[in-house]
């Protein structure tokens, strides 16, 4: 090839335009639709359908009237679109003696969600910061104990917590439920924050100490502004986790007036009195799922970034 090169070079010197030899040249051609591709895309399509179909059934059913539902064509699109089931699910459906629909549960869930999320993210982030940057004697042991907490099934702790809350006079109150959510969100979120903060160079922390910043100044002025993605991840995990919670809600809230949305949804769907209104049930379920869905759509990109950063560098 060296000879050819020299030849080409001398030729090029004589003639400004020189010919290329046979063989591949330029950009590599793109592959056409191959058998492998068809299998891959086919599989993906099947799985996409597997997830999309139930959602489709729910949406179309929620837009049908009861007579149409009774016809039994669950895959058929609605002949006559009606939003009545949605209205009924939101503001008219009955659970027990209350007939003001899911709206009551929605606002209950919001009142539980906001303090729980703020408190758990705030505490877990400071936990993770202290465990990664201000290692103290026994900090590893402390962290291990916290991690063990993440592996104990919730059911085991249900009754002891009932007793604890009763003794504290918080059983049945929203405050009690908020405390439970904060405590149970602690292990996973502390782990998340600790791993993320561990990836921040130690020298940055040292430089801040030389610059006279203390525990809180370093946290608020240096660490937090660098860690937006992980805060978003923790926020999403907590919002969806707490919003979707059923077990704690049904256990630690004693009055039906204060039930969170998930518990109320269950009560509507499982109501044994009267006719089963599938369209209302579907609408109620979709309404309950809207909040986590909205959060995912709003912050999906940051979510992936935060998760990936923790995974690679943790």
């Amino acid at each position, binding site marked *: 090839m060296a000879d050819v090169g020299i030849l080409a070079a001398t030729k090029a010197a004589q003639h400004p335009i020189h010919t290329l030899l046979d063989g591949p040249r330029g950009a590599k051609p793109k592959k056409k639709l191959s058998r492998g591709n068809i299998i891959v895309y086919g599989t993906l399509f099947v799985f996409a359908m597997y997830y999309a179909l139930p959602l489709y059934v729910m949406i179309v059913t929620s837009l049908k009237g009861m007579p149409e539902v009774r016809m039994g064509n669950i895959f058929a699109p609605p002949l006559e679109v009606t939003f009545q089931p949605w209205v009924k699910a939101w503001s008219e459906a009955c659970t027990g003696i209350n007939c003001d629909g899911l709206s009551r549960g929605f606002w209950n869930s919001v009142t539980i969600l906001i303090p729980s999320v703020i408190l758990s993210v705030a505490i877990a982030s400071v936990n993770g910061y202290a465990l990664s940057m201000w290692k103290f004697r026994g900090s590893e042991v402390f962290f291990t104990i916290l991690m063990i907490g993440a592996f104990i099934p919730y059911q085991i702790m249900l009754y002891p917590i009932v007793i604890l809350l009763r003794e504290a006079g918080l059983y049945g109150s929203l405050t009690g439920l908020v405390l439970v959510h904060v405590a149970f969100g602690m292990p996973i979120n502390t782990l998340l924050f600790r791993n993320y903060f561990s990836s921040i*160079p130690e*020298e*940055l922390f*040292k*430089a*801040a*100490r*030389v*610059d*006279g*910043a203390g525990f809180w*100044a370093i946290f608020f*002025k*240096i660490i937090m*502004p*660098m860690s937006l993605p992980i805060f978003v991840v923790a926020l999403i995990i907590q919002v969806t986790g707490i919003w979707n919670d059923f077990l704690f809600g049904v256990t630690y809230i004693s009055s039906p007036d204060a039930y969170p949305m998930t518990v109320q949804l269950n009560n509507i769907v499982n109501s044994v009195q009267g006719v089963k209104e599938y369209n209302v049930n579907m609408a109620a379920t979709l309404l309950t799922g809207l909040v986590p869905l909205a959060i995912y759509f709003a912050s999906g990109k940051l979510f992936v970034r935060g998760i990936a950063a923790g995974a690679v560098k943790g």
Partner: protein
Amino acid sequence: MNMQDTSVSIQHLDLSFGAVKVLQDLNLDIGNGEFLVLLGSSGCGKSTLLNVIAGLLEPTDGQIWIKGRNVTWAEPSERGIGMVFQSYALYPQMTVEGNLSFGLKNAKVPKAEIDKRVARAAEVLQIGPLLKRKPGALSGGQRQRVAIGRALVRDVEVFLFDEPLSNLDAKLRADLRVELKRLHNSLKNTMIYVTHDQVEAMTLADRIAIMRGGKIMQLGTPAEIYGRPQNLYVADFIGSPSMTFMHGTVEGQTMRIPGHDLPLGAYAFKSQPAPGTPAIIGIRPEHVMTGDTLRSAPYTTDVTVDLVEPMGSDTLVYCEFGGQTFRIRMDGQAQVKPGDRLTIGIDPATASLFDKTTEDRL
């Protein structure tokens, strides 16, 4: 050295992580305005020592004095030190100006004073046009200047450098090295500088402390360290290419190595060893005489060239002498090739002799 001239004084410092002793009974006095370099291979404890001086690590025992004040228990910010890190450690979300003023804001310095000091530091380091930029938009050299500026604005007595040039490419490193020296000449602050690069150490230091295993092997001026290494480790560590060592025995004024008796007439013994003491002689490749200088050599012999490494400015020649490979540094213009016969001369006055058992200088 009396307390008045001392800027930083380290007394009987111990540091251990569990059973691992990182620093052992370390004593070091650093004069006012002195540029001291802590030099050693990785794991020798030099960065650890710097972190202890800065207050970022707590010693197990011993004291640290800065400007006649016992700061052993003081916070890093209260010690009157500024520190520059290898990775620059700039706050990524703050502008250059924010980085420079962060320490002053924490110390509640008035706004006008902050502006004045930032402007001065920016002028000294020529980073004025970069003040509104974030660290991400700066090159490595600019970042390190900002990091130095962050120490500069705090108007401190002592500057601590933790391998500040190691992340830069060779050219930039040489440039910044000269700038650092210039900065020290104009500021006259005490500077403690950690590095594993002996060229940086030799060029920058007033004194060098060579460390190994948490102890200082030798403390002295670059000339002392290079010319009169106090032990085998220092002799081997300093100099590139390093000394050639040959084993033998000292018999009065003669060093007996296999096949040769080197006269030691001009060698300055610390104390005359007993006859027959096993010893090691170290000869720097650049101290081996060839060509015209041979006439003044107390001992000459002929060798056969084995291998030649031309390095541009000079040429490194490998040959066999005294039963082992021997390195000679010759002029870059020298015309030698493997197989040539070469006459070399050795002057014991420039060599170093070490006791084989204690490895200390004889």
